[in-house]
């Protein structure tokens, strides 16, 4: 866990502060590094991709680019809900490519001191993929889970994608 934190600190710190985009998923609040987020859009028409893993919602046309869309609820094993007015796609920069993630709602950009980040508790409930949790931020009013989405797809999963 400690290791996962290092890159976040080193590439996005201004005197020990980092900026996060926070979003909601099944009543929990999560945060990702603001520099990784390209844009946040409403749900467009999604084209289903047959025979893809179940959490791949499909692909969309983002100004001429074809971007795969991942449903975070399905990926994290949460109950799927109907999309509503709050539903957003966060288009993130994943290495060299763009990828969209469906979340319940995007709330705000917050600035926190990197010293506030605590390692995640050993047991993380809710079935959220353990490996992409970089830490938790425990403030008076809120609990925020910090994610590194690049780590969301384990090596095995990447191979699964590639091997199909």
């Amino acid at each position, binding site marked *: 866990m400690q290791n996962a934190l290092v890159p976040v600190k080193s590439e996005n710190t201004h005197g020990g502060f980092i900026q996060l985009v926070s979003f909601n998923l099944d009543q929990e609040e999560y945060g990702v590094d603001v520099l990784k987020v390209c844009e946040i859009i409403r749900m467009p*028409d999604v*084209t*289903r*991709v*047959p*025979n*893809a893993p179940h959490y*791949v919602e*499909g*692909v*969309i*046309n983002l100004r*001429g*680019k*074809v*971007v*795969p869309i991942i449903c975070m609820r399905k990926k994290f094993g949460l109950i799927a809900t109907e999309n509503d007015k709050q539903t957003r796609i966060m288009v993130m920069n994943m290495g*060299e*490519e*763009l*990828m969209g993630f469906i979340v319940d709602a995007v709330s705000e950009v917050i600035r926190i001191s990197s010293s506030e980040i605590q390692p995640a508790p050993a047991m993380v409930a809710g079935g959220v993929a353990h490996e992409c949790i970089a830490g938790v931020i425990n403030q008076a009013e809120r609990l925020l889970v910090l994610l590194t989405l690049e780590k969301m*797809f384990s090596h095995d999963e*990447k191979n699964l*994608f*590639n*091997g*199909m």
Partner: protein
Amino acid sequence: MPPIDSEDQELLDGFLAETTELLGKLDEDLITLEKASDDTELMNRIFRSIHTIKGVSSFLGFDLLVKVTHKTEDVLNRLRKGELAVNPEIMDVILEATSLVKLLVSDIKAGTIQEREIDGTINKLIPYLLDNSGVTRQAATAAAPTPNSAPAPAPTHAPIPAPAPAPKPASDLVPKKVPAPPKPVEGKGGDDLSDNSTVRVDVKRLDDLMNQVGELVLERNRMIQINQDLQQNDVQRPDFNEEFGKLTKRVGLVTSELQMQVFKMRMIPVEKVFKKFPRIVRSMARDLGKEVELQIIGEETELDRSVVDEIGDPLIHLIRNAMDHGLETPDVRLAAGKPRGGTLILSAVHEGNQIIISIKDDGNGINTDQVGRKAIEKGLITEDQFAGMSQREIFDLLFLPGFSTKDKATDLSGRGVGMDVVKTNIKKLSGLIEIKSTKGLGSEFILRLPLTLAIIQSLLVEVEGEIYSIPLSSVLEALRVDQRQFHQISGQEVLKLRDFVLPLIRLQKFFNVLPRGEIDNLCFVVVVGAAEKRMGLVVTRLVGQQEVAIKSLGNYLAHIPGIAGSTVLGDGRVALIIDPVALSEVCE
């Protein structure tokens, strides 16, 4: 040997570009020269090429290159003056020297100048420079085995401490052939010369492109104007309709012209691939003791760079096959009442938005009995199956990996990989292969390839509400069929199409599309071909034909079975492009 000075990079780039071009032409000219030795114009051109290379390389300080080209030039000079007569032995040596030059040039290009063994080749050139022009092979071979007579300069600046001593081209002429490690290396060096990272574009084409872009800018301004007028309610509704209609037409026109221009810029003549074949054919013919005349037709036919890069290998395999299996030795040919020398015709021609490349020989054709027996021997088919096979199905056996009619593998063929390579590469290009062969009269391999891989014509089909796109290049026909005409053969649905039994794939099942209720017995079957296979895709409805730009699905979704990519439709939605090749494989 001086290291390459980066300050001279520009000069060097110029040198490499020019040399590569000259060397490409040189090979071709040399082969022609062997047939028409009295063509002084040709002779002079060859001489000039070598001379230019020598001049520039001495200016840039590439000593090894200068040494080789200098001697070659001397020999060519004697040929030019008529002091020597062109004969196959001299040509062998000169061709060997040009190979060496290519190798040296590709070293320079790679930026790693290595100490190459050049004395062997030079020693073979020297006998032809002595006054006694009668000196021939013996002298050459005698000179060859002492390649180290001239001390090689100490490797002062060899970045790679020469793992294997650089290929000794000398071994080529030494009577007992060493099973050729030098050859592949040389060949590779030669291939590397075909540089595709930069493009030369005709200035006129560039000007045209600029004009088109100018037009596009004008149309954009017009569009902004119309939008403003509309915002301010300045325009009457009928007026706007008309204006907007006109604008749409003009933008459409400019865009398609722009597309054509850019498309053209990516096109290069197939000659780029074809020009290395005369030499390959010549050397193979000599090795095999056959007499072959290679005719090249339509080398000016243009196709997309990406396709040109990919067809080289399959063509070499097909030519090898034709030379080795197809064409007979002079004795056999005479006995069969054919002319002594065989003919190999390599042709390229446009047909619609496809290019058709054919390799045709007048050899003994494909022996279907022999092919069948081999397949039975290898356990690929049973006797009974063979008895019921059509000629076409027997030809298809040739493409199976590991299949070879030869009992022993030779340098040239027999390992059974060749046709598999051909099939794989052609499939990769979503092309088709067709074999025609008449026993005793020769065979023809026909490749149908798309002109480009970036923008394709496609057939849009609907599968229970979802739109998919099928590359038109693989679509053979589309039919409206009643589902009650389908037959079942051991669980596989098939359709009797004229005299052919067509295996069917229901896209609705394959792509897990939810059926939309009403069941209609009438459906459409799109007959597609992938390399040598044919199959029918069952779809709900045909939507129409459209030109689409292929977009990748990205790394994460790159390997979805049966999907080659995606495209954006007119309404902004994404449609997936079906890969018939992969589909056929998945369903096997």
